[in-house]
Each structure stands twice: as C-alpha cells, then as structure tokens.
C-alpha cells in the first residue's frame, strides 16, 4: 500500500498521483501497476473525423464557380461585362475571406484580418471605378481604415498581448465609441458639408462608461469572483 506524503491518505493501488494534491506516488516496494483493476474505465477521447482544408476549399471553389459562370454567360450576351462584374467581385471577396479564415487564421489572426480588409478594399475600389461615385477616398476608405485599425488593435490585445477578457472588452468598448464618432464625422463631412459631430456622442458616452465599469471589475478580484459565481451557467 502507498500513502500520499502530503495528505497522509492511503492511495488505491492503481493511482499514479494523489487525487487530492497531485503529489506523485513513489513507492519502490510497490511500483505502479496499471493492471491492478482500476475501478473506472479509462477515458478515451472521441476523435472527430475532419474534412481536410484542401477538400473544403475545392468544394467551395466549385460552389462559387457555378453562380460566377451563370452570371458571365448571362451578361456576356451583350458582348461586354456590366452588372455581373459586381456579383463576381463580391463572390470573389467572400471566397477570399473564407480562404483566409481557413488557411491564414491558424498562422496569424492579425494577418488574416489584414488580408480580409485588403480584399474588401479591392472590392470597394472596383465599385468606385465602375460607378465613378467619388466617395472612395473621402468616405469608404477612411471608414474601412478606422474599422480595420480598431479590430486589429482589439485582436492584438487579445491574441498577442493575451490580455484578460474583461480588459479586451473594455478597450473594445472605447474603440467602438471612437468608431461611432468617426462614422458620424465622415457622414456629416461628406454628405452635409459640415465639420461637426452629433448623435455619436451618446454611444461614445455609454460605451466609455461600460468600458470604465469593466476595467473596475477587472481590477477587483473579489468582485470578479463573486460575479463569476453569480453568472455561472
């Protein structure tokens, strides 16, 4: 028989580590014997069969190719591309985002996001080129840039610096508030020729307040423990 040197309890013959304190059982007179009828079956993790990424990309390519081909055939009847360009470029952007989620996501979440925003920018540039709207540089790209910087910043906090979840959510609240202000400013500047902000102050104040409360909770371990217990599902 073996005893735990830390807890003083006798341990069943099949136990390698004390279940109470994880102290290893070292008994030269009675080495660990797995065959000694453990009273519970061994845990065997269930491995799920997974489809390989290459197969998934191939299936997706076929799924996307069908509507693209149909659009091309329908639109080329007038011997030039008109409306189908929008559909094809949108589908291409969606496909690129899926590919980046499947392939790049594993290596770097930041790189994946940069890739995604690049694809969206290209789509916007194409739409601007086709429609000649004049909104790309003054509105769409600054707004997209703001969104991109915000998500990259929050992802950097969460994934690279490994900050705690509450810290990340609080900074995300601050950033979201700032984004509302940017959006409000760009709308007023571009479409009303005014350099001012209006409605965005309300979400800015609310989100800043939420962010501040979360930072307070995050810095108080007792409060955090109590809340975790109360809201445990």
């Amino acid at each position, binding site marked *: 028989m073996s005893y735990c040197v830390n807890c*003083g309890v006798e341990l069943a013959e099949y136990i390698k580590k004390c279940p*109470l*304190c994880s102290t290893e059982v070292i008994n030269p007179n009675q080495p660990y014997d797995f065959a000694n009828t453990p*009273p519970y079956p061994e845990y065997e993790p269930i491995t799920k069969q997974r489809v390989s990424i290459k197969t998934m990309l191939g299936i997706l390519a076929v799924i996307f190719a069908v509507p693209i081909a149909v659009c091309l055939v329908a639109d080329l009847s007038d011997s030039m591309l008109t409306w189908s360009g929008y559909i094809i470029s949108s589908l291409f952007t969606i496909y690129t985002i899926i590919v980046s989620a499947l392939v790049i996501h594993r290596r770097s979440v930041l790189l994946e996001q940069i890739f995604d925003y690049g694809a969206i920018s290209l789509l916007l540039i194409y739409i601007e080129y086709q429609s000649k709207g004049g909104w790309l540089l003054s509105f769409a790209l600054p707004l997209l840039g703001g969104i991109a910087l915000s998500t990259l910043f929050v992802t950097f906090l969460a994934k690279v610096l490994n900050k705690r979840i509450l810290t990340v959510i609080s900074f995300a609240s601050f950033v979201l508030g700032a984004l509302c202000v940017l959006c409000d400013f760009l709308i007023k500047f571009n479409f009303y020729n005014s350099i001012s902000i209006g409605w965005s102050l309300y979400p800015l104040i609310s989100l800043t307040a939420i962010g501040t409360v979360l930072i307070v909770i995050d810095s108080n371990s007792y409060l955090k423990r109590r809340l975790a217990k109360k809201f445990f599902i």
Partner: protein
Amino acid sequence: MKIVRRQRWLKLDNAAKIFPAARTRSWTNVFRLSVTLTEEIDPEILQKSVQDIKKRFPSICVRLSNGMFWYYIEETKDTPTVQPEGPHACMKMEFSEIKKCSVRILYYKNRISVEFFHSLTDGNGALVFIKTLAATYLENRYGIDVPHSDGVLDISVRAKGEELEDSFLKYAGKIPASRRDTDAYMHWGTPLDERFTPLVTGVLDISDIKKECSKYGVSVTTYLASVMAYAIQSIQEAEVPKRKHKKPIKIFLPVNLRNFYPSSTLRNFILFVIPAIETKYGHFEFDEIVKSFHHQIAFKLTEKNMSSIMATNVKDELNPALRVVPLFIKNIVMKAVYNLTGERKSSITISNLGNVKLPEIMDEYIERFDFILTPQCTQPNGCSIISYKGKLYISFVRKIKEPKLEQAFFTTLVKMGIHVKIESNRR
C-alpha cells in the same frame, strides 16, 4: 387480435417537479447507486434481470413526458438497455434522453450501476431498486433463492399503491413554514467541461468513525457534516480574509421522511435540514461545530417541523391559479425561484444513505455499494455517503478543477486519526 397494454403514467411527486424545470444546458440532477459483486457481470443476464423487474417498478423504469400544465412520468414500452459504463459518473442526461428513458443501467467489470434522474425517486427508493435488481441478477446467475426482505421486493407481484403514492400530499401539515433564509458561502474554482466529472472516493472503517462519534455523542451524519463545515471554513478563511465579506457555512442534509411517517413510497420522499455556522463571528473550533450541529439538527429534525416545510411546498402545487398556468411559463418561474432560493442557501449537499442491509444470502456475493451524487447546479461539489460491511464510502464529485474541498475534508479526517483510503476515476 393483439392486446395492446396501456402504458401506466404518474404525476410527478411534489419534490420531483422542480428537477425538469431547474435543468440547464450543462446540468441535470442525476445520482448513481452501484453494487459491486464478487464476480464479473454478465451483460446478458443483467439485461434479463432488468426485464424481470421492470414491471415491478412502474415509477422507475419510466420516461419523462410533458403535458400542457405539468410534466408526468410514463412507463417505457421497452426495457431499459444495459450499457457499458463510461469513465465519468453521473454524466449529464440530455433532456431528449430523459424523455426516452430516465434511468441508465450500466455495468463495468464486477459492478452494476444505476443512474437515476432525480424526478423518479430519491436515494432510498433507488436503493430498493438496485437491491432488487442485484437479487434478481444473483437468482438468474447462480440459481439462489433470495428472500423478500431488507428492501428486496417480490417481483412476482404487482407494485402496491402505497409504493407509487406522493407521500408529500398525504403527510403535509396545515401551517406552512417560512422560506426566508440567508445565502450561504460557496467556494469556487476553475470550471470544468461538463463531460468531465472527477470523482474521489474515501474508504473508511465504520468502527473508526463510530469511535470518534461516540467521543462527541453524535451521529455519523452530524459528525461528517461538522468535518465538512470545518473543511469549508478553512477554504473560506484562505479565500475570503475580510470578515465583513464572509457568509455563513451551511450544510444541506437530506432527510428520509420514511423515518417519520409510515410511508413505503418508492417515489421522492425527502426533505432537508440545514445546520449552519456564522463565520462572521470568528473562527469555529471543531468541537464547537459538532456541538452546534448536534443541537441544530435535533432542534430542526422534528415531525412537526418537517410537516410544516412540506405544507409550504405542497401549498403552491395545490394553488388552483398556479395549476392552470401553462407548463412553459411554470418552467420559467420555477427555475427563477429555484435559482433565487434553492441552492444559494447551502454551501454543499451531503446525502447519507446509511448502512445497507441485505438478506444474508446476498452478502457473500456482494463486495460493496457506492453512492454518487452529482453537484447541484451552481455548487462546485456533491458529497454522498453509504456504508456496507463495516466500510464507509464517501464520494465527492466536482465541477471545478481544484480538489480543494476533498483535500481539506479528508486531511481533516486524517489529522483526527482516522485512516482514509482514496480511490478515484483518474489515475
């Protein structure tokens, strides 16, 4: 012409009503009773034995169904299938599983285990079921003749009416007791995935425990509840140093009401007492806790007190306005009431099924009994106790990573000079 036998159905008893409503995505109230034989289990004979006893237990071999206003249980058409046991005890029963069959019959090496959804029965009803199952298995396997005594039922007769009654309705008093109570301290840790239920069982000699109990002049349950409170106090002192933040430590002790009333129901018929210590007042020595618990339990554990608690619970069930509320609304309200008043009022549940007695002829074929209780929804640990052939088996199941309560509890016993042997479902 083929005669189709109508499946018998029963209303849920008063205590059972809360369990379907209180379930969550990761938790259902399940407990397990196991009997370990001297030889390896033959699954075919076990399946036949289950088939033999199925009709004798029309309130246990059942499935849960929902009506418009209440849940009810209904006999299953098919016999529950015996299955090999998995590595984790009392795994969550999916609601879809409960609606097909609310009981699991498992086997592993020499052991037969039965897991019950708590709406079907309490530990005492379950013990009768597993004793009868073990007796029928032994009869089928070895051809022995087991007498119908000590909780082994005669399976050749139909279930008696009193075994299926809701004794709460029969024995509830007239004056309801107040439900008001303060919240209790609950330790916490890193939550575990619901698929993992670490189990730690301490095996003790009853003679050692009885010696300690006689020193203080208390029962085994009182003594072990005091050890538990002392262990939780040590955790609280480490985790909540500020006195003003401390909450009382309360131990939830289920009480078998069959000891108070002449009921032979196999349904739920349990209430509880909750002895407590107010740790805001300062550190409690073990002697103080034992004395306090002994008097608190004696004070609360009276027939009149129990009948008034029953009256409180039954009063709501009989209220005509509440009865006509559709089930889905009842579920929401009952869950909210359960969350607000149920588990927060105690630090841990300790269920002691006591000493198992069997007909003498069965003793030579049976090695031990185990009783495992899943932790309550928001509590980190569940603790259950059963004893047989001079050994006491104390099982802890936990929902958190850290085994701090088990360690504090068993090391307290070791420090008191009691020899403890530890078993676990982990190696």
